């Protein structure tokens, strides 16, 4: 059901929703950017629409709301392992169309591929998604090329518009909040990005031969292996296990998992000093091929959702989208 709300009703809606749900949305973190005196837009808890950054894409994706950057799997004392409690409240996660497609990728890995992940599942089943529109598409995204510009499986769509607000509610459980806020029924269609500045053509004839192309060495020479592209990516899911012990009680500690990057040293190292991808070129190839080839081979659709965040964040100005276009072009030649 679609609704129109006044500014006051929007505030009321958020207040009411916050009573029951934890609302996670992109917020501006002042001075917390990578470089001094820079800001960053990341996910945080909100209780009003004004706290949310609506007019630009978040620098980091929604991913950390489902998959914390570091997550305690269990605490150990001498003989026991105790699992920390899951989220106490249901949550609403505000995100863009490309990111909602990203959730499908996270689900594929964490709920399906082999085993179902206990920790992811218990957050995921308490999560609903609120779509944010892309009436003015972001500069670096190429969602239209990836077919991820029109997500329809949202629970709620919300758009503030000056003194008014619009919403489309597709979740029965959430309808009552609109009645309570006194919203008027209206026909609301989400703003979708119809055209991007960046356009990407996926190579169609990738194969094992593509792994040895010269292009990987070229990008490898520029990449410094910082891993930022992985951390901002809404579809990267890797982690590393880590045991932590407390200084004040050496008998107690915890096992955590922490986000990992396939671009950073150590990712493939095994005991005995063997490392399987030593060069930055191999690692870059590993990442790109996963996004546009290897994942699709296993699951039937590409991994990349075209959000463009990796291009935004790269300190070496490596353009992943341009790399894909070059691969496609090389194929034609």
């Amino acid at each position, binding site marked *: 059901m679609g609704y129109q709300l006044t500014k006051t009703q929007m505030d009321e809606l958020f207040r009411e929703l916050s009573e029951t749900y934890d609302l996670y949305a992109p917020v501006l973190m002042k001075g917390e950017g990578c470089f001094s005196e820079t800001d960053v837009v990341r996910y945080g808890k909100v209780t009003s629409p004004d706290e949310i950054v609506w007019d630009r894409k978040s620098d980091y994706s929604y991913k950390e709301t489902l998959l914390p950057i570091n997550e305690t799997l*269990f605490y150990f004392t001498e003989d026991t392992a105790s699992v920390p409690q899951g989220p106490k409240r249901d949550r609403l996660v505000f995100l863009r169309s490309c990111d909602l497609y990203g959730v499908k990728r996270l689900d594929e890995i964490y709920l399906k591929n082999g085993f179902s992940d*206990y920790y992811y599942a218990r957050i995921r089943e308490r999560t609903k998604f609120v779509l944010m529109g892309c009436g003015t598409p972001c500069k670096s995204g190429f969602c239209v090329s990836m077919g991820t510009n029109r997500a329809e499986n949202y629970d709620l769509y919300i758009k503030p518009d000056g003194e008014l607000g619009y919403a489309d509610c597709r979740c029965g459980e959430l309808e009552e909040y609109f009645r309570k806020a006194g919203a008027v029924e209206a026909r609301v269609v989400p703003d979708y990005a119809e055209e991007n500045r960046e356009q990407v053509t996926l190579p169609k004839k990738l194969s094992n031969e593509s792994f040895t192309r010269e292009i990987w060495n070229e990008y490898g020479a520029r990449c410094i292996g910082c891993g930022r592209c992985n951390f901002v990516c809404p579809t990267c899911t890797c982690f590393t296990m880590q045991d932590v012990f407390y200084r004040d009680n050496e008998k107690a500690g915890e096992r955590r998992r922490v986000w990992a990057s396939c671009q950073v040293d150590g990712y493939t190292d095994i005991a005995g000093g063997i490392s399987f991808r030593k060069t930055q070129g191999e690692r870059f190839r590993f990442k790109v091929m996963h996004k546009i080839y290897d994942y699709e081979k296993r699951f039937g659709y590409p991994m990349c959702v075209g959000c463009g965040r990796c291009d935004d964040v790269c300190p070496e100005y490596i353009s992943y989208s341009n790399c894909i276009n070059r691969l496609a072009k090389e194929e034609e030649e």
Partner: protein
Amino acid sequence: MKNEYIPQASKIREVIRHTDLEYTFRMTYEGDVKPGQFFEISLPKYGEAPISVSGVGAGTVDFTIRRVGKVTNEIFENYVGDSLLIRGPYGNGFDLEHFKGREIVVVAGGTGLSPVRGVVDYFARHMQECDSCTLIAGFKTLGDVLFKEDFALWKEKLQVIQTVDNAPEGYEGPVGMVTRYIPDLKFKNPENAVFICVGPPVMIKFTVQEILKLGMKEEQIWISNERKMCCGLGKCGHCRMGSTYICLDGPVFNYVEGKNLID
């Protein structure tokens, strides 16, 4: 839903010392396990490491651990009368059906013998279930030889070539890389031959080359791939090669598939 990350404490029943660096830990475990599968073994504080099953007994499972990393170092220091945390088994392991009735050749390098030890031992005890069984096992030096007691039994039952890369002067046993002994292998019916290669990546590469030179087909060769595995559950991503998760789809592969895996 089962929380796969929670390990179980498993009592150390016995420790067999092979060398200064390699011990076999015989651990309590009830359940089905195949040779070539692996467990995540851990000590709180030091983390987890994937270790392959080197033997399966009644209510026990063996892990042959080489002291080469943070976790394994710690296991060597802290095992006495104690238990380790284990979870698993994970991975496909070796399916004995592929080898029954065949002329089996196992080529193993160093600790690579661990994952395949269960297969060798099975056929040593059930010779009637295979046509023949040959083991070519290579170690760096005589001091690195693993499973010495097993070798005594295997040498009675199987054709065993136990070679060392570097031997002291006057040593009369086989010397040199495992690959050196492959060209001399004789088969009653080459089409019925089947090979298992386990060891460091370079060793697998050259061993497979030698086997193919014998005129064998790729589908007659099985390999086991060792990779970094933080979870064993298809989640952490470290072991992935192309579209394949070694922890879920492997670590044992027929070479027809295995040759296409790129790191």
